Structure formats: structure tokens, C-alpha cells
């Protein structure tokens, strides 16, 4: 107990106010948090007196600084930062919570979306300025494309930081001072309004009373004040944001889990026996098979680990436990990479860089080989080494990462002094440690976020490892980016799962598993909506095109897509002609149909008039023996009814037999021409249709070669080879002269992913292989990446002093032609 506490407690007892104990403790904690002990003690020892208790503090009353206090009122306060609970929901649940539930529970007027202002970043500012000055953007674009506007925390990079971190940018600014000056002033200017993706304000009374509201073009009501990383405007008026976010991966996990359970008769996945939900058995976080895959860099399709760069890093550094993936997630970001933190981590992990971790620091930094990866680690180091109270460490971390020397100087001294005792290190060594903290604070990552998202990643990886079929089906169903679909399809293939193209009778609405294979879903075809897809599936199986048209109908978008993708065979032009004719007939048929329906209605009416009955009730008819006059003849109602029934039955029979549906055979007049656009789509290469309806070419023509082995550019990068094979289709060859007047050839090509690359080849190699180096040829060649940009390669060639190693031409496998199948 400190002195202030003691005095307060003593006076509390003396004044008989023990019942206010809780309030006193609360105030003391506040004083503690703000380091105000000495301030109050000073006022107390100086016998200070205030005219009244300005902030209504019990402590002020107990110390005798003022004579009034009101227990029924809170102390005066300001609102600091609010806690921020971000939660990822599945989209449909997110929309429901935001648009239905919150409004129902808290009232329409007490709930609002949050408006955002998009400000110009450095890249946009300089590009805009170059444009206004009417200059060519190519030069600056080549620079900005490599820049990241935001730092680790998602905050805008400052102009000075950008100059420091990107030397090309600095050079550009120096040679274009006027543009640089104008652009610099543009940075941070608001340029447009938007809606916060997940933020929701929930208040105790109607929001329009204290915040101006706006309405977006789409009719969404949002606050005119923002709340988020950039601005905390709503907090200033006491409003709290609820972040209801969404990532597609939650749905991937749910869907894959559902498929696994359905198809394998499981009740739970990765669950402890007595738990009511999947993933409760955390063994999946360190599952050996998952770790083995991660260790090989086999992380394609996995949330947060999908990119070439991070997979390469995983492969290089190696992965054996959850914490390794967690660290990679934090380290594969621009800041740590540029500052070489990532490199240092990997080297230490591989044993290529010596390091020592002090015994005291081992629990904190051990898992990351002594490197500072997380903010949490810095906080703990400050606390354990510098003996800085925990409550100050987070604030201090912020000050260090923002380089606010004034705010952290006194703590630095404390750290260096205490560190000499706690670590038993020399002053210099402790100072060096502080220097590390100062250097990396800015790049260190929020560990809790990394942990949480590595959980998500590992759930996916586990599914990929044990139930790949279900994993890919769910992955592809949820994904809506075309290039991703193509990548995932390729990865599936590499794992032995061939994705089947759209199939009239096997495909489902989504990517469904049929006969242990995944079929492309109708709903994923451009132009086919979910409802149409469901209608198609409802009618399966279809005998043929005619049957499809009879039963599904003639919805143009769907029919066109299915024909173009070859669902009814290869005779696409004729099918389309048939379809166009069929549509006309169908319309006429519908008119006839309508006439028939009308006739039926007339019969119904007549029978009602005669006996107030219906055709279905004809067993009752014998009752109607009453006679009526028809054309001066007496007839029984019964006879009339029977006669009507006979007429009606005949009519139905006639309608049934008189099929007006055209038959495919002999149907299309020879001179019939299609609408030119449709004709073009139907008659050209199937790849055009695939591009249009799948969003990508199903198989690159190089993949159809019997010699193709799957060496893509991206593989090359992940494998991190000094040299290795790529398989490409040659697009162009240019003869060039180097600075030293040497002749070389620049070959551009495309791999099976459609990725472009450039290969540089010396003239002697070119001469050797020139028979195979023709435009559109398929080749496999051994290349090495130059240290500079990707994807540009050097053709593997022997240096001059090793020329003797060069094999004879027919044994030189550095370049091989792949057979072409048409």
C-alpha cells in the first residue's frame, strides 16, 4: 500500500465512510494509471485548499483539499479509447445482425452505419499530380507500383518515411521538385466518402440528436463523422463502434466441414469428445501432417499463406509448430521485410545467424529466436527488463513506434538503468537492446491478430490435408475471383484432384462432389444466377438438348452459356440455330397453350352452370337426373354433363398428341443465319467461350501437350531454385545488342497460368536452339532468375571458363520442344 492509499484509508475510517470503499479503490486505480500519486501527495503536504470539489473526487475530500463531495455522482472524466472487438462473421449472419437484429433490439433510430472519408495516399497524390501536369505516368508508375501506402498498423505512410524507404521515389522527387511539392501537399486530403465495411453504431438514444447523418447514393444512412484507424470522431461524443466484419474463409471452413460430415458420416471435426462444436481439440494447431505440408511450402489456397512470397518463406525457414506459422504471418509484411527483420528471423531459424537469448528473455523471445516480432513481446521486455509498470508499457510502445522521443525518454533511462540489474549486462549492451526495440517497434505486429488468423489458416490447412476433395469444393464455391479459381484448380490438380468442367447432368448449383470428383457449378458461370442454376439442377438428368429446352425452357443467358461451353456436344453453331428457331416455336406453342387453357376454363364454367359441380366430382353426377330443355329437347343434366366430359377429354387428347415442338433433325433451314455476335462466339475457339463464361481458359494449350510436366513460373519462385525448368509458349523473340556490343535475344513467353515472363539468351545458345525457338512453340527451358526483377530470367548458360562442360547438341537438355497437339 502506498502512502496516498494509506492516508485516504485512514481518513475514510475516521470519517466513518467505509461504505465508500469501492469508490475509493476505483479512484485510486485511476490515479495509479495516470501516475498522479505524487501530484496528490504534494497538494496534501502543502495543505492546498480548493473552493469546491471540481471533479467530484472522493480522494480530494478525504485529503481535505475540498469540503464537498457527492457520492451519487461519478467523478469528472474524459472519454479515452474504446475497446475494439472485431469479429468475423459469415456474410449472411453479418448482414442479418447489422440490418435486422440490431435495429430490432435497439431501435431503428439508435443504430447507424459509419461514414468514412477516403484520403489521398502518397501514391495516388503523386500520380494525380503527374496527370494534372499532363506528363507521362509510366515512369512514376514503375516506382509507385512497388510502394506500400500503409504501414503495419494500416496507417498512412508519411512523406518523409516514403523518401527514406524508397530511394527511387526520392530520386524522382529530386528530379521533379515542382510535382513533388504539389503532391506532398495533396497527401491526406479527403477525396471521397464511403461506408465503413463492418462498423455499426449502437446508441442509447436516437443518433441524429448528436451526430450529423448523411445518406449515400445507395440510400444507406451513415454518420458524417468517422470512426476507425484514421479518426476517432464518434468516440469524442461518447459513441461506441461495433465491428461486424466478414471474411470468406469462415464460410469455406463451415462448408467444407459440412461436406466432410455428410460424405464421411462424421459427427464432429477435430472435436474433444464432450464438446458441442468442431475445432475444440486444439491438436489441429500442431497436426503433424499439416506441419509437414507447411514445411514444404504447400500452403497454396490457405488464408494468409496463399501468396508465392510467404510460401517461399515458409519453405526456406521451415515450419514445425504453430508458432512458426504465427510468426511468418506477422513477418511477411512490407515493414519487417524491408527492415530485414524477416531475413534475420529466417537466418536464425536456419542456424545461419548466431544469436543468444538471455535466460530472462527466453520465455518472451525464445519462440522467435531472439528477434522481436510482436508488439506483445516489446511490452513484456519493457516490463521484465526495464521494470516499467505494465500499464505504461502499451502507451510507451506507441510512443516508441511513433518516434516520440519526448514521451519515452524518461522510460528509456529507466530501462537502461534497471536492465543492467535484471539482465546483469553492461550499460552498452542494455542500450543496444533498447536500440533494437526502437528500431523494430514500428514493424512489430499485433500478436493476437496473428494468432487468431493462424487459427483460421490451420483449420483450412487441416481440411486440405485430410479432406482435400471437400476442401477444394468449398474453396471454389466460396471464391468469386476468376484468377483465383484458376489458381485453385491448378493446386487441386497438383494434389490429385481434377476439377471437372461444367457438365449438364453432373454439375450442381455450386462446386459439387459427384463420383468423387468436383464439378464446376452452374451458379459460377457468368450470366447464370443462383435461381436459374437451381432450376437447371432441378430438371436433371436431361436426355439431350431438346429435352433440356422442353423442360428447362429458353432462358437465353443459360442456354447460350451451356451451348458455348459444349455441354450439349461440339456442334455449337447448329445447336444455336436450332435454339433460335425453337424459341419462336416455343412462343407460338405458349400461345396455343394459352388458348387450350382458356378452352378448359370454359368447360369448367359450363359444368358449374349446369350442376354446380366439377369434373373431379363425376362420381356424384348420377344424382343429377333432373331434366332441362336444350334446343327444345328434354335432356337430363347427367347426360349433358357426360357429353361435356367427352368433349373435354377429346380436347385434352388432341392437345396432347399435337406436339408442336420441333425436332432437331431436318429442322434448321439451310439459309438460316445467326445473330453475328452469337455466331462469332459459337464458331470460334472454345477458349473464347471459356474465358467469357468461366472467367479463364480452362486448359492452357501448353497443358494439352503430352510432354507437359507442369513447370510454371510461380513454382519456380516458391521452390527458390538457383536454376530450374519453366515451360512456356513462346510469344515473341527480339534480337538485341548489349552495351558491350554482344548480341542477345529477349524471348517473351507465357506459362500455363497465363503468366508472362521474359528470358534473356546469349546468341550462341540461341543459334544452337533456334529450330525450336519459333513463335507459338512450346518449350521447356532451364533458366536462372537474375537478382533483379521477377519474372525475368536468364537462360542457363555456361560461363566462358566452363564452356568445356557444354554437352553435344543432341544431349543438351537445357531447351526442349514440347509436342503440340491440336
Amino acid at each position, binding site marked *: 500500500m502506498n502512502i496516498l492509499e494509506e492516508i485516504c484509508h485512514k481518513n475514510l475510517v475516521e470519517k466513518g465512510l467505509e461504505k465508500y470503499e469501492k469508490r475509493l479503490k476505483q479512484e485510486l486505480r485511476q490515479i495509479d494509471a495516470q501516475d498522479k500519486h505524487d501530484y496528490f501527495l504534494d497538494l496534501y503536504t502543502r495543505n492546498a485548499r480548493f473552493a469546491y470539489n471540481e471533479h467530484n473526487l472522493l480522494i480530494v475530500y478525504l485529503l481535505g483539499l475540498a469540503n464537498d463531495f457527492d457520492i451519487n455522482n461519478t467523478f469528472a472524466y474524459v472519454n479515452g479509447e*474504446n475497446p475494439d472487438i472485431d469479429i468475423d462473421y459469415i456474410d449472411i449472419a453479418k448482414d442479418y445482425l447489422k440490418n435486422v437484429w440490431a435495429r430490432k433490439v435497439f431501435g431503428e433510430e439508435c443504430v447507424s452505419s459509419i461514414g468514412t472519408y477516403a484520403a489521398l495516399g502518397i501514391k495516388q497524390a503523386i500520380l494525380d499530380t503527374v496527370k494534372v501536369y499532363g506528363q507521362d505516368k509510366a515512369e512514376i508508375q514503375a516506382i509507385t507500383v512497388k510502394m506500400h501506402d500503409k504501414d503495419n498498423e494500416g496507417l498512412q505512410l508519411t512523406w518523409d518515411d516514403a523518401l527514406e524507404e524508397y530511394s527511387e521515389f526520392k530520386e524522382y522527387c529530386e528530379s521533379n521538385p515542382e510535382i513533388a511539392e504539389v503532391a506532398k501537399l495533396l497527401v491526406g486530403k479527403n477525396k471521397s466518402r464511403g461506408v465503413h465495411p463492418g462498423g455499426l453504431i449502437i446508441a442509447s438514444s436516437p443518433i441524429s440528436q448528436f451526430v450529423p447523418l448523411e445518406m449515400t447514393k445507395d440510400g444507406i444512412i451513415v454518420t458524417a463523422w468517422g470512426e476507425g484507424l484514421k479518426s476517432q470522431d464518434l468516440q469524442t461524443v461518447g459513441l461506441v463502434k461495433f465491428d461486424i466484419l466478414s471474411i470468406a474463409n469462415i464460410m469455406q471452413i463451415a462448408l467444407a466441414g459440412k461436406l466432410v460430415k455428410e460424405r464421411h458420416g462424421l459427427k464432429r471435426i477435430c472435436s474433444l469428445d464432450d464438446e458441442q462444436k468442431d475445432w475444440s481439440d486444439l491438436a489441429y494447431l500442431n497436426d503433424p501432417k499439416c506441419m509437414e505440408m507447411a514445411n514444404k511450402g504447400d500452403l497454396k489456397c490457405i488464408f494468409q499463406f496463399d501468396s508465392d512470397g510467404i510460401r517461399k518463406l515458409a519453405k526456406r525457414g521451415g515450419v514445425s509448430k504453430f508458432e512458426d506459422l504465427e510468426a511468418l504471418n506477422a513477418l511477411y509484411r512490407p515493414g519487417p521485410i524491408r527492415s530485414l527483420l524477416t531475413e534475420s528471423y529466417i537466418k536464425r531459424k536456419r542456424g545461419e545467424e548466431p544469436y543468444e537469448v538471455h535466460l530472462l528473455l527466453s520465455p518472451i523471445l525464445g519462440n522467435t529466436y531472439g528477434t522481436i516480432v510482436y508488439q506483445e513481446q516489446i511490452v513484456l521486455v519493457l516490463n521484465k527488463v526495464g521494470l516499467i509498470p505494465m500499464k505504461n508499457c502499451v502507451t510507451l510502445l506507441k510512443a516508441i513506434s511513433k518516434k516520440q522521443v519526448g514521451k519515452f525518454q524518461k522510460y528509456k533511462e529507466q530501462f537502461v538503468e534497471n536492465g543492467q540489474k535484471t539482465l546483469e549486462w553492461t550499460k552498452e549492451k542494455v542500450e543496444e537492446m533498447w536500440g533494437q526495440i526502437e528500431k523494430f517497434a514500428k514493424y512489430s505486429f499485433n500478436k*493476437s491478430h496473428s494468432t487468431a488468423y493462424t487459427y483460421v489458416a490451420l483449420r483450412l490447412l487441416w481440411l486440405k490435408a485430410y479432406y482435400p476433395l471437400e476442401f477444394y469444393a468449398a474453396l471454389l464455391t466460396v471464391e468469386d475471383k476468376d484468377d483465383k479459381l484458376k489458381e485453385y484448380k491448378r493446386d487441386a490438380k497438383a494434389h490429385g484432384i481434377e476439377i471437372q468442367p461444367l457438365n449438364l447432368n453432373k454439375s450442381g448449383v455450386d462446386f459439387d462432389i459427384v463420383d468423387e470428383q468436383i464439378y464446376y457449378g452452374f451458379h459460377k458461370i457468368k450470366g447464370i444466377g443462383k435461381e436459374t442454376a437451381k432450376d437447371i439442377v432441378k430438371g436433371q438428368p436431361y436426355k439431350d438438348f431438346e429435352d433440356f429446352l422442353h423442360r428447362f425452357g429458353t432462358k437465353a443467358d443459360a442456354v447460350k452459356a451451356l451451348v458455348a461451353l459444349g455441354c450439349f456436344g461440339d456442334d455449337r453453331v447448329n445447336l444455336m440455330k436450332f435454339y433460335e428457331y425453337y424459341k419462336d416455336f416455343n412462343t407460338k406453342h405458349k400461345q396455343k397453350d394459352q388458348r387450350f387453357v382458356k378452352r378448359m376454363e370454359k368447360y369448367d364454367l359450363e359444368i358449374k352452370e349446369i350442376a354446380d359441380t366439377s369434373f373431379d366430382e363425376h362420381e356424384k353426377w348420377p344424382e343429377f337426373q333432373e331434366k332441362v330443355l336444350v334446343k327444345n329437347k328434354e335432356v337430363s343434366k347427367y347426360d349433358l354433363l357426360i357429353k361435356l366430359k367427352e368433349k373435354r377429354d377429346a380436347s385434352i387428347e388432341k392437345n396432347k398428341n399435337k406436339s408442336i415442338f420441333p425436332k432437331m433433325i431436318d429442322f434448321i433451314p439451310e439459309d438460316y443465319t445467326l445473330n453475328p455476335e452469337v455466331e462469332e462466339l459459337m464458331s470460334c475457339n472454345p477458349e473464347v467461350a471459356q474465358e467469357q463464361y468461366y472467367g479463364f481458359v480452362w486448359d492452357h494449350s501448353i497443358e494439352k501437350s503430352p510432354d507437359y510436366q507442369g513447370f510454371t513460373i510461380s513454382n519456380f519462385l516458391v521452390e527458390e531454385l538457383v536454376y530450374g525448368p519453366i515451360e512456356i509458349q513462346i510469344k515473341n523473340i527480339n534480337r538485341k545488342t548489349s552495351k558491350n556490343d554482344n548480341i542477345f535475344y529477349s524471348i517473351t513467353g507465357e506459362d500455363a497460368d497465363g503468366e508472362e515472363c521474359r528470358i534473356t539468351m546469349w546468341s550462341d545458345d540461341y543459334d544452337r536452339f533456334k529450330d525450336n525457338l519459333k513463335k507459338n512453340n512450346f518449350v521447356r527451358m532451364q533458366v536462372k532468375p537474375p537478382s533483379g526483377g521477377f519474372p525475368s530470367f536468364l537462360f542457363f548458360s555456361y560461363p566462358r571458363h566452363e564452356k568445356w562442360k557444354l554437352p553435344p547438341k543432341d544431349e543438351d537438355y537445357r531447351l526442349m520442344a514440347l509436342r503440340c497437339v491440336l
Partner: protein
Amino acid sequence: MKHEVCGFEHLHRHTHNGSLLDGFGSVEEYASYSKDVNQKYLCITDHGVMGAVPEQIRQCDEHNLFPLLGIELYVNPLQPFTNSRKESTEFRSQLDDSKKKLFDKSHHLLAIAYNNQGCQNLVQMSSWAWIHGYYRKPRVNHEILMKYKEGITFSSCCAISEIAYTFFNYGEDAAYDIVEKYMAMFGEHFILEIMMLDFKLQKPYDQFIIKCHQKYGLKIILSQDVHYLKKEHSKNQRLMLMGQNNRTIQQIESLIASGETDLFELQDENLWMKSEDELNEKWEKDYQDIIDYEIYKEAKRNTIKIAEKSKGVTLDRSSKLPKLPEADEKLKEEIKSGFVKRKLPKTREYIDRIKEEYELITDKEFSSYFLIQQMMTNEARRVFPQLMGWGEGWEAIGPGRGSSAGSLINYCLEITDIDPIRHDLLFSRFLSPTRGGKIMKCEFTIPEL
């Protein structure tokens, strides 16, 4: 000539924060430069929105300025109550051509709150304009002005005001009628505004405003329609506008060469935050014949009077978080049952962590916040099988994200699925006693006896 120092406050000022595609200066720039041009107040009047207010208040706190809260409203007397932009467009399509032309105008009107009621009314008016009065711009009509006029000073504004429009299109008498209408509407809280710009309509408009001042004895102020901080920023503002309108300098130059004069990008070059000396300079150079010296001085002094009248308006900063009944107790119970459900070990480490978190959450009065989050996640789990037609519910939510995974209470409440102790995650990264929530005031402003 030597001028008497009258004092002057800028009451008409735009920021990039609120007046998108128009204002270039930022609140921060204005605030930090204010002392240099002898400003004690910081009045912001963005177009049609009060977007910069929180930043304005923060900056005023930091730079020891009094915030004055205002807005430059868009007014159109024909604007009906609508519920969408589409309804406004439909309304317009039913008007005859002459009315259409009138309907298309969005006249400017400056409004500054002089008490808290006025501030709330400004907020309500700007919301009404965006939600119910939007046609190309967020607009209000005269009825809305009447409904929410309490606590607000209205100023006749620039040469794009309703008065100016009437004056230039229908003549002096018609314009007097509008002035009288405004006088009837706002009484003593209606004031007149003159400016010293290069804009060609400004001088004749100022002359008419001065006539009104003489005729009706209305209070008159001088304003500068500030859009950027310094003189040299005029160029930057113009370039910004070009960038946003996708035009190049060359295009603008060729337009000028072809005789185009009315270019939005080429705004007046006088829109910087002038000092009193700079204003005097402009008066001497261009406005001596237009504005009588005595009126000029009075118009400057009046800006201070209006500022003083409008001082002390504050926003209600109290917490608006819905308070659930017995939230602290309820939270405690939920934590207890969650602790058991999660089968957490009853070790010192876990118990202390829960206590630390609970104490801080209740101290900062955030219990309701956690309970509402828990209601949300529970509701998502409950409703998911219904929405999807399959599943058990737990699938609806991810394991966690961001710093909230650092809270053991979140784990107990099943808001997150991560045990922070297992992964060395810190609560203080999520909610810290020094930064978060209610922070008790400890510094005294009253003098000691």
C-alpha cells in the same frame, strides 16, 4: 495608410475534411496557424455537412482556441420532403421549365450556432438535408429553417446566396423582399455578410448588401470565405480541383485561350486565411470605393461580437453506449459460467487475469459493451442454421481477430475462440487503464486558496 486595429475573426471557412472537392486547408493547419493571424476562435463552416467538427474540437483543445460550430447550408425553397434522391428527381420532373430552373439552384446560407440548442439544430438540419432534401446537394427549405432556427445566427453569405440570386436575376426590389423574408424568419439573428474578392459579382453584391445594412440597420460582418491556409495554396487548390475533375493544366489553358471564363477549377485567388493587415491591403487596393471605411471597420469588429456570442457551445460527450440493467453483475455471472464451460484451470494465473480484466472493464463502464457483443455472437449462432438451412450455429463466427483475442473474458463469453494465456496474448494491448474508456480528471483548473 495606417489602419486602426479593430480585430477580426474568420467566421466563414472551409476544410478539406468536410468540404470535399472544394476546401484545401485542414483543420489542423488552420488551428496551428491561428495565433499567427491573431485568431482566438476557430469557426468552421463546411458545405452542407458538419464533417470536421470533432477534429475542430480536438484541434481547439490542443491550440487553445474557442471552437465555433457552423455550416454553410444549401437552401432551396422548393425542395420538398423526400425519402431518397430518386424522389427529388421525380419531383423535379413534374415541374414546368421555369420552376425546374429555380429548383436546380442550391443557394448558400451561412449558419453558426450560438448555444447548444443551436448546435443540435444545425446537426438536425444537416441530417435532414442529406436524408430528406437531397437534390445534387444536401438542401433545406424555408420551413426546415424555421423549424430548426433556434440558437443559430444566419448570415446572408456569398454571391451564390438566395439574396444574390434574386438580386442579379430579378432586381433590387425583389432582393429586398427576400431580405425582409429572412428578417421575418430569423429576427435579430439574421446578419449581413460582405467579402472582398476578385469574383466579378462580388462588388455589386457587396454594394447591395451595404444598402440593406443602411436600410434595415442589420448587423454586418466581413468574411473571407477561407478555402486554404496561405496565399500560395491557391495554386494547390486549383490543381487539386483539376485532379479531381480529371483535367490537365494544358486542357485548362486551352479552355482559357478559347475564351472560357467560368471554370470551376479557377476559384478566386483570395480565399486564404488573411490577417487583418492583409484584409486592409485588399480594401485599400480594390474595395475603398465599394465599402465605406466606417462600415468596413464595423464589419470587422462585428465578427468578434458574433464570435463572443457563439462561444461556449459544447458537444454532449457523455457515453451513449446502451446500458443494460445490472450489467456488471450480469457480466460477472456470464464470466463465471463461461469459465466453467470452457473448462479453464482454476490457477492463480487464470483467476488473476479474469479479475484484472473484469476490474478494468467495470471501472471503465464497458460491461454493457461486452454483453452486447456476446448477445451478437449468440444471436449469430442461433440464427445461422435458419438462414442457411444447415449447420449448428457455431460455424457463423471466426475464432477472433485483432487485439480482442487478447482478452480472457472474450474467450469465456465465447466472443472469441482463443485462450490468450495459452498464446501469451496481453489484455493491455486490447484495453489499457491509461488510454481506454473513462479517464478521471485529475488536474485542477480552479486556483488553490
